[in-house]
Structure formats: structure tokens, C-alpha cells
């Protein structure tokens, strides 16, 4: 996303966009041209609000709703890593660095979404005062066993990817908001791949892959629902195309590869039911 591009796009259909946004067009252009780095980060900072004010429009309630949902999940994810980085017995070195990097990434998502929601004219949902990271006793050792901590992290990241995916359709055509959501969605997938690869490298899950194989491949039966749902991760039928009927190299695409190649969505109701035991709502 580049705010200059966005403004230039708008200018193509509305030559007076700068005047609408601000009577001081020159100041506006100078502000956004203040180094590409600054421009890139400045996008959510009230852009929505500026445009809405300029055009006398409000951001659709459905869009706000998706953003609040995302923030609700990011609040929880951030606290999971924030508490985990402090409490869980994570080995010092590269693994600790990785967990802290993911923690910081989630914190940025929280802050980013708050800005976007505020910019869209709404009040960001508050984070919960308390979470139950054991999920009502399902993961009693979440912060005392490094293996449990990483396994839960994997489940949460994979679920986060599915959660964003499931609501992308509600942001259809929304350049700023959909692009932002897709951008976070991809980062959650990067987190998931990293956690999965860490579990493989450290021997906790020696055959784990960065992609979801078959369905619930975590080794935790309690996570079956996180990989199930209306369209389960085991799905091999994509818009009527049976992926396992596709010819690969030396035979058809295997069931494993077919399920790995497509991540599947979860509905909001499915996600909220899955995170409810953690005290997320």
C-alpha cells in the first residue's frame, strides 16, 4: 500500500481530491512525499477518516465489524506471546529471538488495527482484562512446558490465518481495508510456517511441515476443530476442481500436497467458538 498511489488513483477520477482533503494541497503533497518509508507507514493514520470526511461517507458497518474481529484476535495473540516470552521456558538464542519477533509483530498488528479502526471513525474494541491461556484446563502446561507452548502457538497461528481468510469476502473491493487485512493474513501465515518449522528443527515434531498436511497435523487431538469446520483443511475440492485428479510429476497430486496447497477458511462463528475457552469474545 502506498498512500501516494492511492491519492493519485483518486485524483484520476476526482481532480480536486487534494482540495477536498485539505485546502492546502501543496502541504498535503509535501506531507505524503516525506520519504517513501514515512508514506508507507502513514497510510492508516486517519486516511479512512480523511476520505470519509472529504466525501461525506461513512465506512460500512460490516467493514468495521471485520476490523474489530481482527483486533479482538490480535489482542489475544499478542498477550499469548507477551506472557509466553516471559513465563514459558523458551531456550535462549534463536528460538527466544523468534518468539519475541512474533510477539512484536502481533503488537504491531494490534496498534495498526487500532489506528485503522479509529481512522474509520469507530472506537477500537478493548482487550480483555484476563485470558485463560490453558483454555479451561485443556493446555495446563502452556506456560510451563516449551513443547506445549509451541504447539498451542502453532494452533493459534493456523487458526488466525483461517480467521482472516474467512472474512475477506466482507471486505470485497475495499482497497484500503482489504489490502490491510490481506497483509496481516499473510504475516500470520509466515508466523505459522515459522512455528511449524521450529517444532521440526527442535525435535518436538520431527516431521512437521511449514504447511498444513491433511488436516489436524499438530498431534493435539484437542485442536481437531481448529482444522475442521464447514470447509475443513482436509478439503481437496476447489471450486469443483478435484486437486487430486491433477497430473503432477510421476503421478497425480497426492492428497497431502492437495491439502497443503490450499489453506481453508473458518467462519466467524467457528473461530469465536474455538477461542471462547481462552476467554476471547
Amino acid at each position: 500500500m502506498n498512500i501516494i498511489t492511492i491519492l493519485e488513483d483518486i485524483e484520476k477520477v476526482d481532480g480536486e481530491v487534494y482540495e477536498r482533503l485539505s485546502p492546502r494541497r501543496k502541504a498535503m503533497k509535501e506531507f505524503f512525499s516525506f520519504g517513501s518509508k514515512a508514506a508507507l507507514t502513514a497510510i492508516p493514520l486517519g486516511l479512512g477518516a480523511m476520505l470519509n470526511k472529504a466525501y461525506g461517507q461513512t465506512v460500512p458497518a460490516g467493514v468495521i465489524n471485520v476490523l474489530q474481529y481482527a483486533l479482538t484476535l490480535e489482542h489475544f495473540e499478542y498477550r499469548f506471546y507477551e506472557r509466553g516470552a516471559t513465563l514459558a521456558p523458551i531456550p535462549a538464542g534463536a528460538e527466544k529471538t523468534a518468539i519475541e519477533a512474533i510477539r512484536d509483530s502481533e503488537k504491531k498488528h494490534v496498534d495498526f488495527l487500532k489506528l485503522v479502526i479509529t481512522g474509520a471513525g469507530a472506537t477500537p474494541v478493548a482487550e480483555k482484562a484476563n485470558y485463560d491461556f490453558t483454555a479451561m484446563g485443556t493446555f495446563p502446561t502452556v506456560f510451563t512446558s516449551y513443547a506445549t507452548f509451541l504447539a498451542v502457538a502453532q494452533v493459534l497461528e493456523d487458526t488466525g490465518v483461517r480467521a482472516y481468510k474467512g472474512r475477506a469476502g466482507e471486505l470485497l473491493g475495499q482497497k484500503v481495508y482489504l489490502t490491510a487485512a490481506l497483509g496481516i493474513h499473510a504475516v500470520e501465515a509466515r508466523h505459522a510456517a515459522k512455528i511449524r518449522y521450529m517444532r521440526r528443527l527442535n525435535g518436538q515434531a520431527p516431521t512437521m511441515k511449514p504447511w498444513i498436511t491433511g488436516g489436524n497435523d499438530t498431534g493435539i487431538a484437542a485442536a481437531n476443530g481448529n482444522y475442521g469446520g464447514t470447509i475443513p483443511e482436509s478439503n481437496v475440492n476447489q471450486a469443483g476442481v478435484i486437486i487430486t485428479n491433477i497430473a503432477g510429476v510421476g503421478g497425480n497430486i497426492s492428497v497431502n500436497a492437495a491439502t497443503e496447497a490450499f489453506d481453508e477458511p473458518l467462519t466467524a462463528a467457528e473461530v469465536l467458538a474455538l477461542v471462547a475457552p481462552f476467554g476471547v469474545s
Partner: protein
Amino acid sequence: MKQKQLVDSPYEKKGDIIVQNKSRRKFFTQAAGLASIAAFAAACDKDDNNMSGAVDLGTGDFGILNYAYALEQLEAAFYTQVVATPYSGMNAVETSFMTDIRDHEIAHREFFKAALGTMAIKALEVDFSTITFTSRDSVLATAKAFEDLGVTAYNGAGYLIKDANYLLLAGKIVSVEARHAALIRELIAANSFLGDSVDSNSVNLSRTPDEVLAIAGTYIKTKINASNLPKG
């Protein structure tokens, strides 16, 4: 070609004048009319491979799907070659990862081909002359570039998609590309799974189709015409 010239010239000549001198409402009305004529013309000459033999991605959602199909063709061809001629020192784990990714990309490519049916562009000719397939560094650097590029491509084109079902399909694929990207980055350097693929908000970067195709063009011999894609 005749249809294109008939449509293009008045659009370009009148565009600025309309914006400057007529009301916004009138501009939108006229622009919408011209756009639909342009879309019709583009659809008509889709199979002509005009513009000096360039492949026309087409218009609307099919155009975006063809754009994705083009990128998946590139990735599938690359990993097919990587697995067929392994770089020196490729260990068993790396071989299995590369084979997985190859199969994922073939699945993506063939999925788009099947879903597009008669609207699908032809098979593209790739140019991998700048890649040293015997070198781990060269292969992984290229893989990283392709995977990161793919993620920015899907993310940047998402809002151009009109049909929620197509958007969901793109979403199903882009997160897998992001998983690939993270793994390839980790194979190059530990804890580089985010690196410069994200902005200061830890949001993945995105690119426009023109930006993506300018980069991908190095590796695709067939000329691609993306000018009829939706502009948003």
C-alpha cells in the same frame, strides 16, 4: 486492433478535458460508458494475441485469475526445474520441501487452468537463463524472490476482484505462498521469516500487477499485456 483504436483514442483525448471541465457526476457517467465499451472490445480481441504477439490477460475477474495463472506457471516451472536438477548439497529435508512446493505450485497452476477453461491464457515460455540451478544460493534467492513476489501480487490484486468466491480462492492460495516464502527465507537465514517482506506495521507488502509483471518479466519470455486488467 481496429476496435481498440476506435475505443482508445477518444478515451485518451477526452479524458482530461472531461475531468477538468465537466461535473464529476457527468464524468463518472461517461467514464462508465467508455469502460464498458473498452471491456467489450478487449473481450473481443482476447484471442488475437495482438500487441506484437503479447498474451492478453483479459478483463475483470478472469483477467485477475489469468494474472495469477501466469505467476503460478512461472513458479511451477521453476520448482519443477529445481527438483529435476538439484543444486549441489541439497539434503533430504530440502529435497522434500522443494518437492512439496513444486507440487503445490503445479496444483495452483492446473487449478487456475481448469477454473478458467476457455478463458485461460496459453502456456507461457519461461526464461531461467539468469538462474544457476546448481547453486543453492542462486536457487534459494530466486525462490525467495518468487514467493515474496507472489504474496505481494495476490495481496495487491485482492481488492480488484469482484466475486467473493474468487477472492476466497485467492486467499486460500496466498497464505500457502506466504508459508513457502517464510520457509525459503529460513533456509537462507534463521529468523528471516518476516524481514523486508513486511512494513513497519508488520503488514505484508503488496504490489500492483504492473509492478509485479515488471519484476516477473525477467523470467517470462512470452510478452504479457496486462493493460485490460481492472484498475480499481
